[in-house]
């Protein structure tokens, strides 16, 4: 390999990276620009400039609010999501394995799934009060469904040849559950968790908008009521960034967990 070709390749690689960065950044930059112009031209009080929002963002969320409002909210988000994941996968495996139990429970599950989780907030406030438990339950009640239903489908779709293989080699019990059932269903489980995560963020905010005295949702509503408009916008921006970041982290975990799945699919396409 000559030095010239190596340099050429590196230059080509750098060029491609630059083009890619441009592709990713182009639209956000244009949108921020449009907003900026619209804000300046209209002069609306409710529409501060992006610069103003950015300055407020640092000021508002760089303070003790981060510890008092943001972190507890994120903690409840993770707590609720984790609880829903454990319950959803656990129940999903049981239901996926038993046709009889599925037939028994499916109509009831369809009914509960149809109830919009936010309407549970007033109900849960009566039963468990305005507490962390209530907020966790609201999050769980919404984001368990995609996890549960996807897990059921994933468990039902376990390859019968692998099932026979496990029977022949006497693989049963815990090893059967972890090596066969859960791994087989993991693509569907991850898809369900991805949906569940975005629902969890929505419900975290909603659970804090009612009769709460702290948290991200509460703070944003509070800013809106006191006409602290740039502050309100900065809260919305924070939620957007939080969702974006979580989705990014989830994508990394997913790629690791499902590397075999992506590899199998690539091999099937003949790559």
């Amino acid at each position, binding site marked *: 390999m000559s030095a010239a070709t190596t340099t050429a390749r590196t230059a080509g690689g750098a060029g491609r990276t630059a083009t890619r960065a441009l592709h990713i950044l182009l639209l956000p930059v244009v949108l921020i620009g449009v907003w900026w112009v619209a804000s300046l031209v209209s002069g609306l009080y409710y529409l501060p400039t992006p610069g103003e929002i950015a300055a407020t963002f640092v000021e508002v969320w760089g303070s003790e609010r981060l510890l008092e409002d943001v972190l507890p909210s994120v903690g409840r988000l993770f707590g609720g999501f984790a609880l829903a994941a454990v319950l959803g996968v656990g129940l999903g495996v049981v239901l996926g394995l038993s046709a009889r139990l599925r037939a028994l429970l499916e109509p009831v599950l369809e009914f509960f799934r149809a109830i919009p989780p936010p309407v549970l907030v007033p109900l849960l406030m009566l039963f468990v009060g305005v507490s962390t438990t209530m907020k966790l339950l609201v999050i769980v009640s919404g984001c368990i469904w995609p996890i549960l239903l996807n897990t059921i489908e994933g468990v039902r779709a376990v390859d019968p040849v692998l099932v026979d293989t496990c029977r022949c*080699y006497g693989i049963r019990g815990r090893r059967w559950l972890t090596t066969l059932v859960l791994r087989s269903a993991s693509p569907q489980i991850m898809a369900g968790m991805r949906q569940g995560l975005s629902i969890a963020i929505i419900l975290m905010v909603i659970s804090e908008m009612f009769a709460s005295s702290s948290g991200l949702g509460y703070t944003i509503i509070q800013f809106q009521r006191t006409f602290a408009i740039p502050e309100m916008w900065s809260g919305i921006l924070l939620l957007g960034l939080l969702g974006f970041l979580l989705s990014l982290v989830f994508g990394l975990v997913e790629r690791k967990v499902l590397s*075999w799945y992506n590899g199998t699919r690539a091999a099937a396409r003949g790559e």
Partner: protein
Amino acid sequence: MATTSTAPAEQNTAPHKKAHMLDVTGLQKIYPGQHGEVEALRDLTFHLGDGELACLVGPSGCGKTTLLKCIAGLMRPTGGTVELAGTSVTGPPPDMAVVFQEYGRSLFPWLRVRQNVELPLKEKRLPAKRRRELSDEALDAVGLLKSAEAYPWQLSGGMQQRVAIARAIAYEPRVLLMDEPFAAVDAQTRADLEDLIRTLWKRFSMTVLFVTHDIDEAVYLGQRVLVMSSSPTVIQDDVSIDLAGERDQISTRGEHRFAELRTRIYAEIRNASQSGTAQAQEAGKD
């Protein structure tokens, strides 16, 4: 470890001249269906001696896979019995390994090649060192020691089937069942795998029952070829293959005796499928 072979012979219910490893007696399988019952297997009886390599051929749709699943304890027969070394088979027996036709679907895609081979050994509670010895030996025997850390989907079809064979060997079975294992690989790979099976069978002294629809393959591989009739199935013939023990893809297949045996079995299978078609046509007229 073949501990039961040291047990006295009188423990066996029927005293045989040669030690029987696998006894299939009067096996029948009827599937319940919407349009009445379907009799897949009518009355199958055959015996395999310890260390024998037998091939089972039959026309397509004659219930080869059904038979294999009954022998492997994966399916309950409607009637008759299967005995492994004198013990009745009611579920998958611990001394038996199966290699399936669908190699791509019988390996765990989330486990590496070595993990696939060692998984059944973990369930057997073998210590890590012993597992490693067995998987090394089995992977070496199928020529895949270098690919131990690869994932199955990174390998070609023939190599994947070798992994499945290695997993079966590492399990140290007394009986190895193979269900059309080479039906989905190309001709050259298939020839290599056939020779591999002969080599492994001699080296590991297992009893092998090899199911195939390929007559040439059956004659080339087996000491015996059991010919199945079309459905409802019985054992139509039991042909002893009197070819030399050392077989070679080119010279063995070129032997006059090979052609004779092949022709004989081919004629039987054609008769079987023709009589089957005739029966089906008659049934259609009613």
